[in-house]
């Protein structure tokens, strides 16, 4: 697959070139949606390099911020259009935990990879996940925590989704500092994501994005 210069610049974390490239593309009359897709292709390069061990969280954060900054004029032009996304993720830090860093990174990286994120924030009530699933019909639910004390809250949140008859409609991804596969088994989640990029890879696979 050929990669455009703009996508390559983002993949290489060349911030100036990305911002300039977007400005030039718009000035030359390119469709904003096409330019946005080039930026998303750049984020795919970042994701591949992360998975190959060339990039780390630092690069995920920087690339997502370049994406946001350079993409701002595109978002402005696209705000009245319904944007195609690969799918939707309802995301939140579970009840009794106020830590938002991991969740925020996941939201940023997922968004820049073309996945719509409904961010419920921190200390999310169990029922709020259910309400959001009913409203937004996501394929994915992401839950985060930094405290072992809220493993039971995570478990209850998933049970609440099940009790509402919605469990089969969503894939539940979990992550966070003390979380591991044993936690995923305990709380009844589908996939444990060690990193934000793990989450993106899992989400893309589930959503059938190549």
């Amino acid at each position, binding site marked *: 697959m050929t990669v455009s210069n703009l996508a390559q610049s983002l993949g290489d974390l060349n911030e100036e070139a990305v911002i300039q490239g977007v400005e030039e593309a718009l000035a030359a009359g390119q469709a904003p949606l096409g330019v946005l897709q080039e930026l998303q292709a750049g984020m795919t390069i970042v994701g591949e390099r992360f998975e190959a061990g060339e990039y780390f969280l630092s690069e995920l*954060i920087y690339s997502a911020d370049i994406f946001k900054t350079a993409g701002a004029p595109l978002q402005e032009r696209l705000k009245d259009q319904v944007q195609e996304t690969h799918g939707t993720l309802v995301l939140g830090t579970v009840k009794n935990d106020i830590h938002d860093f991991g969740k925020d990174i996941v939201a940023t990286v997922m968004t820049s990879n073309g996945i719509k994120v409904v961010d419920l924030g921190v200390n999310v009530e169990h029922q709020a996940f259910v309400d959001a699933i009913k409203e937004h019909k996501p394929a994915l639910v992401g839950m985060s925590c930094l405290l072992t004390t809220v493993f039971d809250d995570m478990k209850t949140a998933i049970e609440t989704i099940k009790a509402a008859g919605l469990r089969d409609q969503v894939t539940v991804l979990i992550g966070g500092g003390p979380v591991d596969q044993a936690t995923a088994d305990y709380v009844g989640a589908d996939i444990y994501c060690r990193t934000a990029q793990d989450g993106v890879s899992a989400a893309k696979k589930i959503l059938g994005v190549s």
Partner: protein
Amino acid sequence: MVDRTTEELYALREKRIRDAVALKVPDRVPVVPNGPAWPGRAMGVKISEIATNVPVSYRTIIDAYAGLGDIDGIQSPAYHVVTLSIQWLSKVKVPGRDLPDDELWQVDEAELMTAEDYDAILAEGFGPWLARYYAERLPGATEEFEAFAAHIPEALEACRARGIVPFTPAVATVPYEYFCGGRTMKEFMLDLFRKGDKVQAAMDEALPVLIENMRGVIRGLGLMGLWIGGWRTASEFLAPRLWERFVFPYFQKMVEAAIEEGAIPVLHFDANWTRDLERLKEFPKGKVVLSLDGKTDIFKAKEILGDHMCIMGDVPPSLFSLGTPQEVGDYCRRLIREIGPAGFILSSGCDVPITAKYENVKAMVDAVSPVD
């Protein structure tokens, strides 16, 4: 069973730990648990008391861990939640004040430190800037910390009086951890890319002050060891070129200074440091401890550093909370067999979590004793 005086028991346990640090085979692998919250839950003491009442915290921590069996030491016998604000330049939600009485404290990450503060550090000097930061943005923190520090000698004495070694009752860390906590992890990482020279200059200004403070604490308390902590400096979060520039040289200087003062630097390294284990060979052999939390591959650490550095850890929090005593015991015996018996100290990976089952924490302590 030989009856020993408290002094003899203390000497035996101290030797056990020192032998492990020096990469010798001790008479038995030492076990040195860590963490203030679980003792509160185990002893029925409110978490708000553990968080803010130092005499209650040290009595509870010592009683809870001593009650488990033949422990050799406690990493830190005294606690006050303000220490988190002091080292991470962050607000903390405190039980009994911002949270219900018996809930665990939580760091309330917000951008308290601004990008302009790097200039302020360079203009004012790190020491004066830090004093002003605490006074203006974390009011009361300095006073609370001083009150906490005043109790530490009695906490150490209470621990020693039980024949238990207070191994690492103080924490030092590198400028990265301070700034990252104050700026938030996201903003700070962006600073590394966009204003790296300024960040580095501020770090270079801060480091000598932090080292002098650390030297003062080691001397003042006569410390055997102390934590030199790494949380957000972990390899897994940072590209190698950033880690080599903003992290490792600062740890090197702190470790060298702690050793010069005669203390054992315990690299309390949370999260995953596997990528850079090889670099830790640059620290002096047999004088430093690498303490892992279950996220770094401890078996890889043994392979790379086993003949160079004592390793401590690393029963994972989820195993304490969700596992069975058999599973905890099996894991600990595997650690003793494969990481030990030379140069190994058995401990929890970071803190014993508040949700740990009592029988699981006891299973860790029991694992060091030979079965009759």
